[in-house]
């Protein structure tokens, strides 16, 4: 027998009350863990999506935003493909690469996938008028120079360059790793998309983003399949950063009316704002659980020590000092807090697992670091909530047990 055994044996008692005592903390921790997991992962997802974008400027139709673009809704607004030509034929400097895209959610063999039409690099370059523009000329690179601000955002120019697709036949397609699994197809197989047969040129490597569920095909093929001739969802532009700070965006706005032109920087800062809001909500919930959870534990402890008056009296009678009684009760509070933290964390992971795909469009893996956080917070609240009841219990008249007959 020691103080730990005493706590351990008592923990087996009155379990329903015990559970309801830590319920508030557990739920609160669960919600915070879920919010944190989703916002951290969605932040990463945005970064990865943008990384995959292969661009740092996005030209979208007026009224659309990046989410519309990724959501690829059936009625998402479009802009004319002709705008690509406008950019190319203009005398803009600092446009290093560009790629028009048309994106829609579609159904292939009962699988919900995303169909994206892209214009391969060779077709852009092969147009004589574009070749003159110096768009892909070597001297442009030199003009751009190093790109420090892109580096700081974590998107390396070199990686962006690699993203462009050099050539793609009019009846070929590229398919994301997950889409290939879902459709049970491999390289060289054929798939029918809305009545049009496409040959799979390549199964792409796994990226952990929505790209894994994408089918890439030639822009014009996709326009025909969807019946949206001459329209695109967005034009992704790889502009060199010096040029962006020299007013490339406003020059683009001048030649592309009725469009919305944003930079990665803006998109990232929007996401950061969203996450800030989520963090504030987490903070509010945290404050609420500190109070509600603390009071709930305190309330449980108070009821518990009152029920145990006799037992506490027996311990005091036998010679346990007040400090031992205090220790026993606080140890119990710490164990409850520990359990509440662990269960709350697991609940949060499960909530994020189920809600993540709806809220952020990505699967949310558990973040182990949050477990430590959950435990620390939960134990802290539990201890603070139990201080007063334990203090009173240690001072109960030790002879309560002897005078009841």
């Amino acid at each position, binding site marked *: 027998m020691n103080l730990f055994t005493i706590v351990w044996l008592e923990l087996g008692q009155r379990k329903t009350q015990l559970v309801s005592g830590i319920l508030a903390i557990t739920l609160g921790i669960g919600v915070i863990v879920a919010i944190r997991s989703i916002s951290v992962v969605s932040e990463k997802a945005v970064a990865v999506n943008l990384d995959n974008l292969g661009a740092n400027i996005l030209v979208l139709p007026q009224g659309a935003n990046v989410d519309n673009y990724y959501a690829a809704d059936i009625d998402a607004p479009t802009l004319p493909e002709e705008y690509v030509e406008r950019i190319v034929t203009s005398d803009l400097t600092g446009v290093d690469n560009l790629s028009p895209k048309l994106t829609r959610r579609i159904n292939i063999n009962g699988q919900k996938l995303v169909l994206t039409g892209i214009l391969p690099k060779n077709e852009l370059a092969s147009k004589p008028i574009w070749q003159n523009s110096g768009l892909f000329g070597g001297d442009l690179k030199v003009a751009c120079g190093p790109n420090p601000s892109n580096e700081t955002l974590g998107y390396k120019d070199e990686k962006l360059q690699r993203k462009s697709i050099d050539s793609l036949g009019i009846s070929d397609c590229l398919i994301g790793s997950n889409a290939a699994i879902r459709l049970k197809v491999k390289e060289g197989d054929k798939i029918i998309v809305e009545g049009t047969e496409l040959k799979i040129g390549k199964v792409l490597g796994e990226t952990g983003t929505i790209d894994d569920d994408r089918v890439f095909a030639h822009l014009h093929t996709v326009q025909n399949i969807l019946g949206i001739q001459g329209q695109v969802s967005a034009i992704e532009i790889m502009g060199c950063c010096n040029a962006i700070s020299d007013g490339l965006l406003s020059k683009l706005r001048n030649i592309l009316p009725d469009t919305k032109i944003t930079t990665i920087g803006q998109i990232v800062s929007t996401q950061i704002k969203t996450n800030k809001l989520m963090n504030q909500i987490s903070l509010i919930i945290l404050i609420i659980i500190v109070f509600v959870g603390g009071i709930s534990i305190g309330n449980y402890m108070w009821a518990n020590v009152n029920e145990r008056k006799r037992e506490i009296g027996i311990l005091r009678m*036998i010679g346990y*000092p007040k400090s031992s009684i205090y220790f026993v009760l606080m140890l119990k509070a710490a164990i409850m807090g520990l359990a509440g933290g662990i269960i709350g964390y697991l609940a949060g992971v499960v909530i994020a697992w189920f809600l993540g795909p709806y809220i952020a469009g990505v699967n949310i893996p558990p973040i182990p670091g949050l477990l430590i956080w959950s435990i620390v917070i939960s134990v802290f609240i539990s201890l603070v909530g139990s201080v007063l009841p334990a203090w009173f219990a240690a001072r109960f008249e030790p*002879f309560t047990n002897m005078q009841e*007959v």
Partner: protein
Amino acid sequence: MTTILTVNNITKVYTMREGSVNALNEVSFAITKGDFVSITGPSGSGKTTLLLALSGLIRPTAGSIIFEEKHLEKASDKELAEFRKNNVGFVMQNFSLIPYMTAIQNVMIPLGLSGKTMIEQRELSEAVLGLVGLEDRKNHFPRELSAGQQQRVAIARALINNPTLIFADEPTGNLDPLLSTEILEFLKKINKERNITIMMVTHSPQAAEYGNTRIHLRNGTMDTLHSKETKTLTE
């Protein structure tokens, strides 16, 4: 003949909102080591209050209690807890067992502060449970034991720390006459064999017969204190 406990003019006044009760009124006596003291008196005469004061569970309003030259009325809460742990065993009318602990776990409670290993604690407790004849019931919970068995567990718990004193408050109050005799005989046995001083509060005249020293209380005042001359353990 060594005096183990000296009580000088202790008074205990319980103060409540409705008024105050004079539970003990200038009570004085001295107890010799190895005495079996029976404390009698009508209900409400202050018997329990006397035991509580002697064990340091309450503080007297006035007067002094001296145990082996130490003034208990001046001791701190911590010192009093220490005193109870090292010197006192309790046997109560309601047995005072912890319901969710088995017999052996209940007996082990006083060892919880001893620093002894679990194995040592177990061995000691099994031995003491053997002494009260409950070896085979060690893993039973109090609710699975008869009243007499529960009281024997309580006695085992009182003995585990080798106390100098045992305070018993109506130890046979909840037992039938046969079991009462059994418990009283056992108390007498440990009193003689181990020279443990016993102070036992009782209602029953038969039980009171076991004491070689008798204290009778009436309205918080000591009526009579007399020692039988048939003491077997003196000198």
